[in-house]
């Protein structure tokens, strides 16, 4: 593109500093919001007031903020579950299934302790809660291990395996909580029995303690990749399996481990949403909605370029916008799903802006003579 004597050129970036990536991401978010305002204008809503409503509900409102935080915990766990295999260049598309598995594991512990009985029995929280968390983590791990084992041993495509396991687990949950299933609510409302109040997850300033698990996992992963031997092995395998093998890194162990670790975190998300979020405390009828939301872990993971700490603000933003978007849709009486539409636009813009991670634009002064000689050539 030429303007006067200047030409706009694309130049390949050699390296990308952290602050540059941050600025690019912020610009992308601003651009996405500007783009989405067209939809608000078309719907006859003033975009600025709409955004004010969304942000105020998501991040300030005393009803909205806890919803945002719970979504954030859920999304961050799913994002971390995606990031670990991603660093080994393996794709975990199975957070949804691992999330369901985690929920089933946690409720299986309750069932074993007779938690289904009515009236709700008193269960010892110091024993049952850690067991539920462990069971959720293990169930997610087992599901991840299936994909990791098949990938490591037989090189079966991990995307296909994790994806298909999602369907199996979706129907397994249905089987467990619907009519006749072992987790069926005695009222038969297509949802699971309710958590006895004695084993509600402890709250820290109104927030489930699972926030510590989610943030802790992100920090742990950062440390894992920056400093540890296992992190080094995962990264080496991700960049070049052949070179990793040459260096003595097991091509079975790495795929297996990253999927087990990813499964653990997605499984914890299952515990979090159905056993720790105040007001839910059961495997809800619309569990599929949350399963779909788990896919946003992929987007958050890709946008953060596999950086577990960068995933924190991104998961918070996505969590907040999904809550605020749903709210504003009802409040302003809009005729379409603002939450998913907004997340969609945001996602596409952020991914498109990754172009600027690799290239930058520079204005160059054009040399007149070159142009004319170039122009002479027929």
């Amino acid at each position, binding site marked *: 593109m030429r303007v006067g004597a200047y030409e706009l050129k694309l130049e390949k970036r050699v390296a990308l500093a952290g602050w540059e990536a941050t600025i690019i991401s912020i610009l992308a978010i601003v651009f996405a919001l500007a783009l989405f305002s067209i939809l608000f204008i078309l719907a006859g809503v003033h975009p600025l007031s709409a955004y004010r409503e969304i942000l105020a509900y998501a991040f300030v409102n005393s009803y909205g903020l806890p919803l945002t935080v719970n979504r954030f915990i859920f999304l961050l766990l799913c994002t971390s579950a995606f990031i670990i295999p991603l660093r080994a260049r393996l794709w975990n598309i199975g957070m949804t299934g691992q999330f369901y598995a985690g929920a089933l594991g946690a409720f299986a512990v309750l069932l074993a302790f007779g938690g289904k009985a009515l009236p709700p029995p008193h269960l010892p929280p110091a024993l049952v809660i850690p067991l539920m968390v462990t069971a959720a983590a293990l169930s997610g791990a087992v599901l991840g291990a299936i994909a990791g084992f098949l990938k490591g041993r037989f090189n079966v495509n991990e995307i296909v395996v994790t994806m298909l396991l999602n369907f199996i687990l979706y129907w397994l949950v249905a089987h467990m909580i619907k009519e006749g299933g072992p987790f069926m609510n005695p009222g038969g409302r297509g949802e699971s029995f309710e958590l006895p109040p004695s084993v509600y997850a402890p709250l820290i300033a109104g927030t489930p303690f699972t926030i510590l698990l989610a943030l802790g996992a992100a920090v742990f992963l950062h440390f894992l990749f920056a400093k540890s*031997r296992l992190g*080094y092995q995962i990264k080496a395998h991700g960049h070049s399996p052949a*070179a990793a*093998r040459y260096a*003595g890194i097991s091509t079975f162990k790495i795929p297996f481990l990253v999927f087990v670790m990813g499964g653990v975190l997605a499984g914890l998300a299952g515990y979090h949403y159905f056993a720790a979020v105040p007001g839910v405390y059961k495997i809800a009828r619309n569990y599929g909605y949350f399963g779909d939301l788990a896919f946003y872990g992929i987007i958050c993971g890709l946008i953060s370029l596999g950086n577990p700490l960068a995933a924190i603000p991104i998961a918070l933003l996505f969590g907040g916008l999904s809550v605020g978007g749903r709210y504003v849709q009802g409040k302003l009486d809009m005729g379409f799903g603002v939450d998913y539409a907004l997340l969609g636009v945001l996602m596409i813009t952020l991914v498109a802006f990754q172009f600027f991670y690799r290239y930058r634009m520079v204005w160059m002064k054009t040399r007149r003579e070159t142009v004319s000689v170039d122009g002479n050539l027929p």
Partner: protein
Amino acid sequence: MHKGLLEGIKRGETVIEARGITKRFPGVVANDHIDFEIRAGEIHAVLGENGAGKTTLMNILFGLLQPDEGEIYIGGQRVNFRSPLDAIDLGIGMVHQHRKLVSAHTVIENIILGHPKAGRILNLKKAEEEIAELCEKYGFKVDLRAKIWQLSEGEKQAVEILKTLYRGARVLILDEPTSALTPSETRKLLASIEAMARDELAIVPFITHKLPIVLAISDRVTVLRRGRVVSCQQTECATEKSLAREMVGREVIFRIERARVERGNPILQVENLSARSDKGFLALRGASFSIHEGEILGLAGISGNGQQELAEVLAGLRKAEGGRVIFEGQDITDASVLQRWQMGIGYIPSERTEVGSIGDFSLVENVAMNFYFDERFCRQGIVDYGKLQQLTEEIVSEYGVAAPSPVIKAKNLSGGNLQRLILARVLSRKPRLLIANLPTQGLDVGATEFVQNKLMQAKKEKAAILLISEDLDEILSVSDRVAPIYEGELMGILPAEEAMRETIGAMMAGLRSEGGEP
């Protein structure tokens, strides 16, 4: 663009002229005001070490890169290439070092692929006639209906040359054309090159280390060093020594001094070892040999005769089909790769960029490939990157790796520097057994000399070394004993000092030795 700039050009007229070509890459000036000229009918060799800027210059002339400064004239007309397509249209052809052919297709299909005349309906018969004519004219012997995967390296290269000629090239740029060829294939190629030059084609082979070839065929030679033209002269005026000096910037000793070391205990014993190739056939058949302390065993042979499989079995990367591997008295046939590294076996793979290093890793992380499991650099699962950086800085300076900083990515290193880094990394583990697979392939004179000296030094430090090489001169001058390999079988083992070049050559082609020790 003008299609016919080079039509009817006569012998001795300037075909391409480059003036003041400058190309900068981050942190390095790859081409620094290079003037370069090619005339019709001449063979103009371009010489230079790895990283001297040959490839950059040729890529600019072929339109793959755009120069930051400077001008290119073709047939006297100023041109501006936007892509290789422009260069191809003007009659410039390039044959890259790495083959760019569709291996499941036939020779003809590959040659007409992308040709403007090959429209939606293929006229294979006419194309075949035309291509056969070209073959006849320049002495290429290729079965035009064979599939690419059935061809030898030399034949594949002939296909690439034919492809550019069929596309109408008047200038042919050949990137290290003889590096993958056997001696007899090289001879045939040189004859074809001379035939093409007689036909007023300008040919630019650019070559790193085979100076005798440069002297034998070229009319003029341009030497590049660090992005600048050091000299441009008639080949008659040059000698092997003078060219090497200009390339490296100092005197080069061609014959490496063979170190005298007392032969010690056997370190490696291989008994009746067999292995399958990736395609499943038995590529290594019953190899038996031993390597002793302070000894270099040279495995001589044309690539693809089982050397790769042998190296990989010894490194633990490939399963043995039969036989045993004994290292310092211990059976390691089933040991893992990691166990072997820890025991003191070092492997320098031939695939530097795919296996030996990780391009997106920094030099420090690349050095970590052989140290992440080492207690000195990794305690309780935590890698000590600070200490690794120190080690990297040490070996970078000791081995003369040209790198501005130890945290740059390995993909920014030139081939020779990358090999120095890999060698440095493996040798600094002080291996008892070193498997060096094509350690000097594609390296320039200076780097080759360096690598060979380092192997000698390791030998003096009592390592047992298996040197796998296609270069018979290297094998004969560096190793103590020579084991020619042919179709997966060792043809015998001879002491290198007494071995006749011809004998080894014959054994590499499948002749068994009379009285060699097993």
